[in-house]
């Protein structure tokens, strides 16, 4: 179970991140188009319209590349007595939680996550700013394995 190097998340996490971002861009594009077709007050020129769509396209490209970079930064590590998690590009964060301070653990699966058969592991301590660990993109089996590993450790103490 323990492993002294950081591991990246399951590749399906990248897929679900991409789906979310592309969904966002699609909603944006569709809303824009609807506004264009149904409003009559202002006439957009063809140039304005193509600018809008190329902007949306560029945004989609940027989000896809950023998603890849974010995905590569997300790493977790389970050591003998603690669990740690890294993420972020502009603000790079590394959170460390000793098993001895863990209050409870939750596993969540959203509909999209279930489709990609991944899960989110949330770890709570008594720290009061709610900035505890939240690791998304673990295989469900793996998440359950980690949960029972930590629970057993806490029981043995």
């Amino acid at each position: 179970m323990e492993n002294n190097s950081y591991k990246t998340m399951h590749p399906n996490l990248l897929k679900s991140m991409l789906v979310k971002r592309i969904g966002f861009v699609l909603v944006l594009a569709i809303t824009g188009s609807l506004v264009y077709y149904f409003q009559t007050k202002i006439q957009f020129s063809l140039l304005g319209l193509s600018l809008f769509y190329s902007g949306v396209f560029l945004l989609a490209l940027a989000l896809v590349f950023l998603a890849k970079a974010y995905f590569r930064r997300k790493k977790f590590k389970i050591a003998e007595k603690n669990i740690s998690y890294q993420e972020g590009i502009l603000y790079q964060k590394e959170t460390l939680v000793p098993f001895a301070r863990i209050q409870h653990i939750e596993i969540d699966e959203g509909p999209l996550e279930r489709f990609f058969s991944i899960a989110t592991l949330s770890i709570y301590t008594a720290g009061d700013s709610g900035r505890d660990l939240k690791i998304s993109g673990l295989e469900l089996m793996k998440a359950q394995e980690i949960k029972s590993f930590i629970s057993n450790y806490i029981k043995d103490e």
Partner: protein
Amino acid sequence: MNNFSFQEFSRQSPKGIIINYGVLLYKMVKSFWVFIPILFSKNIENKMSYLFSVIGGLVLLLLIVAVVQFIYFKFKIEGDQFILNKGMVFKKKTAIPIERIQSVNFKQNIVHQLINVTQVEIQTAGAKDVEVSIKAVSRELAEALKKKLQNENEIEEEVEIEVKEDSARLIYSLSLLELFKVSFSENHLRSFFWILAITFSFGYQLEDIVNDWNFADEMIQFVVLNKEEITGSLLALFVLFVVGILISVVVSFVRVFLRHFDQKVVYKNDGIQVSEGLFTKREDILKIQKIQYAVQVTNPVKKAMGIGTVRIRQAGSGKVKKKKLVELVGVKEHFQKELNALFFSYEARPNALCFRPALYYLFKMFVRSAFFVALVNVVFYFNAFSLLEFIVLNLVLLPLSIYLVLLKYEKTYFTFQEGKLILGDGKISTVTTLIEYFKTQNVLLQQSIIQKKRGVATLKLQTASGVIKLPCLRLDEAHSIKNILIQEMEENKRDWI
């Protein structure tokens, strides 16, 4: 006193109805206060009787609610659990394991004192926990309940209570003169900004209300007519500033007197008991092992008067963070040592492992205060100040902000010493934080992209009572501090609460 067994459900004192009613009325006024000016406006006079009957009905309804609240509010002790039932429509049952109860505190505001009842607050700690407040019981019942809840707690932990029972010892009690000293040496600038914020947020609403009153008309006209002369000159601004500071001093005095009047600190069993307050009397028990961290605050004025402040933070459960802060305001030098020894068996030593923030921290603070100075200049530019006034303003502002930044950098340090972490901070005041760092919940190492380039990182220690920040450490030092912390958190088997 031993008549209270708590085996059966007991209710609050019937006087509790008064308290319930008071709270309900207060809530009503609070949520409708915006409409109060309507009562004084002219065009409503013909509908007055209608309005008053609505208000009267509401007030009567609240009385019934208060009685119902009283009837359905019951508590007892069952086995090792404290049980509380309340509510008629929305029934709520709360069960707290007695061993999870952190402290039982008493509170009496002026109404409580008039009708001679006590409010009991039961505090627990942990992730998903509850706070219980019993609004009005007799003092005897309160004492008995407290004894019951805390004794049962202690029997598990220790058997020597009998011996310890009489060890109550007065650490200090604040005299009126000392209270004056404390008020005088407070950070008035903070009160000043507080007043400023309040004035800005209420200013418009106040204007509306004042407009309705005829007597204020002339005043307002005077101010409006002379607006340019009043806001335009630096001298007037200076006068305004002095008046503001004077008001701030008064506010500081009022705040300190209300909160800390007759503060008594007593050493008792394995903790200290703090009682204080002018109208609202509070009694808090601080158990030493449950203290998360302590902050000493002093400034040159306080130092000259030989008096200091110690803020003590206990573990909080989310919502009620502020209440977990107990402030000992009249700590004299030799009590300071005693308190340090009491809480942390700590004595400052020069040869401890010490870290300082990287030079980048100084750079960052300079950039920030440059932004602030620029902002002030922009604001003043739009108020049509003359060139001379700009020069005078910046001659004061620039050296002052540089001096404050240098002071803060000078005073920031992080020292490790026998399981304790001591943090220095402060500008004009000196702030020292003491934490037994095994009580940290989790550690966050954070680097912005700029910090990454400069090879520095910020460490954040999450405790059960707030975040402690070690800003802009060299990366290798940040990692070694992180490792020290983690190792202690894993190896130290003492309870963190």
